[in-house]
């Protein structure tokens, strides 16, 4: 399903595992050696799996006193130079927001899994939803960059988790992985690649004489080299706006220079970050844009539409934020209308509407805990096609 | 040390020969034990008295406590023999003087028999607080300045033992008095076994082993001192040299925030805030280098240096003149 995955991948023994299980395996394969979390449905299996897996690879699992402590411990571990992960769900994700902002501002790599469930508030803990599309981008206060990945299958959860570390570490950023309850707790047949021996992307470590080291000075790539405690650099890390030397500053010039660099630091690395899937877009009259379980329903809907000779295509962002805007525009170039089925009251459709300004964008909004079905999507495609042709 | 003499008194079948005893058998043996409150003088004298009594001697053991417990001089007279009258030892009549502290040993020297007295003294120095009234670092202490070598020249037989260090190395500094008992035992003809028996009754049960070891080390020390050639004698700790210092304050005025803590808390009242409202030293002679200003400065603006004074200062100290 992943466009980045060669079709001729060697067939390995298949396994039937759940999305959360795959998440844990992906983290360990990516080199994650620290997990801190707090139990919350429907993400707890990730913690349970990692509590068994991490000790086997000399990693650390710790269950903290709350979600705030969990993200804080994860950032703390990452400050120590260790790849670290936390996993949670809606209410816990809200609690983590302040510290996600800290990680973004101080540029501390870490990965946060958010298994989406019904909301707002405690909502429906065991039912799927897709309500954190916007929160995952804008949840913490102030302006900051963040990467959000939205895998749609058990296999993809595994692979995207690995990719999350491969983005977080070299780009020094928190990466959020969003997937819904329906995939988290569903088992699927997957074949997992052997990650052993595959070189993973590494954090950019400081080198050279400590006296000359500026913790937030960067080269062309806009990514500052990080110092590992104990390596002789002895720098200061703060959530306050800081200058290149890492110390707090309120100088407008210094803040503009550094925050400006931070806010645009992904631009040079979009090739690494962006990821999406397209299906049948070349001649699609109606383009479906969806993520997660809704995208899975759309896939099935495409079959149904094809059987009814409706020309429908699918654009599925795998990197949700920063949104692959150009790819969407290209995929939608032939379509007369766009349909966004999503399990919320209207989030992805807002972004799609913004990007495809002027194009007709319809949405199916669902927030009752029942996934949108392929039949419903096919029905709306048919209606839309009919309306467009009239 | 003279050998056993059959004309001397005997008790319980044991030949007793107090080494320092005068020729007349009916004269008691006088052992004066001195030290500072809390050192265990009374324990030493009780052990000796008990041992002598168990051998059938009449014993009188006289001590003074009360105010002496408060760091003052403590002494205990132990007299034993076939007949003992006075509970105290007259001046110049002590056969053995056991001192648990150096200056106390010197104080009681006139009580030692000039022609035969044995001087056994710990080189431990307990300096009374008022001897340090001059609070300047390096100020000369008002403490006895006689060295072990000087003292030995004035006594017939003398042992200056660093018993406290020996006990410290054993792991129980309180056993220093038992090291001295060991040394004392080498000058009295009670058997080592009798001593150990008596000691075991007087020290806390848990410390019997360490005290017996201390006793043996004390004996060994004297044995070596008697037999070893002069250059192989057990080392004596020299009295500490006086080290005069000059105090210098390093002030970083840019860091001072005029909070006034150092000025107000200086015990010598020798700091002030100057016209720029930064701290400065007004009277270098008053400053003792106590560091209170350095420690209490929230802004790290003061650093106290204690510089070594020049060589003349050292000479002056050695001569007893305050630098």
């Amino acid at each position, binding site marked *: 399903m992943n466009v980045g995955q060669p079709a001729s991948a060697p067939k390995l023994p298949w396994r*039937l595992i759940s999305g959360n299980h795959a998440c844990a395996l992906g983290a360990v394969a990516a080199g994650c050696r620290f997990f801190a979390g707090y139990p919350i449905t429907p993400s707890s299996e990730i913690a349970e799996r990692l509590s068994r897996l991490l000790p086997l690879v000399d990693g650390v699992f710790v269950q903290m006193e709350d979600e705030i402590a969990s993200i804080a411990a994860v950032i703390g571990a990452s400050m120590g130079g260790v790849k670290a992960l936390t996993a949670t769900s809606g209410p816990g994700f809200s609690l983590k927001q302040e510290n996600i902002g800290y990680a973004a501002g101080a540029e501390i790599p870490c990965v946060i899994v958010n298994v989406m469930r019904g909301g707002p508030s405690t909502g429906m803990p065991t039912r799927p939803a897709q309500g954190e599309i916007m929160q995952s981008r804008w949840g913490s206060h102030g302006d900051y960059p963040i990467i959000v990945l939205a895998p749609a299958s058990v296999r993809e959860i595994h692979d995207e988790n690995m990719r999350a570390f491969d983005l977080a570490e070299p780009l020094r950023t928190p990466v959020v992985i969003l997937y819904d309850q329906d995939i988290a707790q569903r088992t699927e047949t997957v074949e997992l690649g052997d990650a052993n021996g595959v070189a993973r992307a590494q954090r950019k470590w400081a080198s050279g004489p400590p006296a000359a080291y500026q913790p937030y000075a960067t080269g062309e790539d806009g990514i500052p080299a990080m110092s590992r405690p104990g390596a002789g650099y002895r720098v200061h890390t703060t959530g306050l706006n800081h200058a290149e030397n890492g110390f707090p500053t309120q100088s407008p010039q210094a803040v503009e220079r550094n925050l400006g660099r931070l806010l645009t630091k992904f631009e040079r690395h979009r090739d690494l970050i962006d990821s999406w899937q397209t299906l049948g877009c070349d001649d699609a009259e109606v383009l479906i844009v969806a993520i997660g379980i809704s995208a*899975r329903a759309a896939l099935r809907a495409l079959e149904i539409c094809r059987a009814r000779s409706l020309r429908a295509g699918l654009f599925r962002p795998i990197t949700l934020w920063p949104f692959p805007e150009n790819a969407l525009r290209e995929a939608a170039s032939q379509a007369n209308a766009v349909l966004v089925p999503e399990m919320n009251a209207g989030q992805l459709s807002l972004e799609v509407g913004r990007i495809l300004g002027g194009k007709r964008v319809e949405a199916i909004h669902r927030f009752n805990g029942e996934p949108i079905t392929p*039949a419903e999507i096919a029905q709306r495609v048919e209606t839309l096609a009919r309306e467009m042709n009239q | 040390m003279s050998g056993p003499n059959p004309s001397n008194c005997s008790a319980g079948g044991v030949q007793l020969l107090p080494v320092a005893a005068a020729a007349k058998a009916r004269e008691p043996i006088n052992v004066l034990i001195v030290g500072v409150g809390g050192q265990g003088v009374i324990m030493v004298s009780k052990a000796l008295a008990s041992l002598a009594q168990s051998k059938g001697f009449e014993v009188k053991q006289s001590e003074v406590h009360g105010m002496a417990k408060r760091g003052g001089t403590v002494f205990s007279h132990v007299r034993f023999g076939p007949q003992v009258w006075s509970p105290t030892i007259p001046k110049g009549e002590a056969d053995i003087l056991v001192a648990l502290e150096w200056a106390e040993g010197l104080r009681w020297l006139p009580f030692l028999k000039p022609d035969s007295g044995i001087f056994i003294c710990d080189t431990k120095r307990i300096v009374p607080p008022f001897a340090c009234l001059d609070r300047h670092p390096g100020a000369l202490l008002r403490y006895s300045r006689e060295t072990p070598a000087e003292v030995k020249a004035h006594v017939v037989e003398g042992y200056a033992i660093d018993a406290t260090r020996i006990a410290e190395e054993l792991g129980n500094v309180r056993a220093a008095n038992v090291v001295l008992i060991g040394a004392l035992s080498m000058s009295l003809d009670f058997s080592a076994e009798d001593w150990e028996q008596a000691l075991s009754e007087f020290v806390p049960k848990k410390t019997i082993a360490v005290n017996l070891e201390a006793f043996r080390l004390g004996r060994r020390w004297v044995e070596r001192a008697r037999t070893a050639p002069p250059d192989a004698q057990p080392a004596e700790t020299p009295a500490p040299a006086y080290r005069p210092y000059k105090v210098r304050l390093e002030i970083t005025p840019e860091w001072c925030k005029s909070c006034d803590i150092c000025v107000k808390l200086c015990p010598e009242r020798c700091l002030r805030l100057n016209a720029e409202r930064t701290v400065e030293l007004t009277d270098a002679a008053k400053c003792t280098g106590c560091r209170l200003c350095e420690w209490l400065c929230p802004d790290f603006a003061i650093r106290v240096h204690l510089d070594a004074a020049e060589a003349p200062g050292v000479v002056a100290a050695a001569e007893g003149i305050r630098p």
Partner: protein
Amino acid sequence: MRGSRLEIRIGGTGGQGLILCAKMLADALCATGKRVAQSQTYEPTSRGGFCNSDLVVSDDEVDFPLATALDCLVLLDRLAVKPSWPLLKPGALVIADTRLCPELPEGELRVHPLPLSRTAIELGSERVANMVALGALAALAAVCTRDAIERAVRAETPKAFSS
């Protein structure tokens, strides 16, 4: 084309071992080269209440992992009838326990009422009704070889029950 899609539901009530049964079937299918997506009812239904496990089986990767039109339904309790009946494809295979699910609505279906739980009781434990159902399903639906199912059952069964 993804024409090979096959949907199976094992429905009943909590505590009947439905998930285990579905997992064994999924393992067996997996071993014969099929792709499977299996749902886990994740609600406090371990004792009483409707409980089901759906399998979506495909030759290729499963696109939509939820049941849309059941090819096959195993009913171990009457509680599962109402929520499952609308999902049945015309002509779908229905296996129902005669004791616990005696009455079924009308429909153009291949219905097989079987004494699943009674057989299990005769075997010595009502708790193996799920295995009886699995056997019946394997025989009637012919989704995979008997050998593959037996291997999956052996791999998943606790040693104490394997004899």
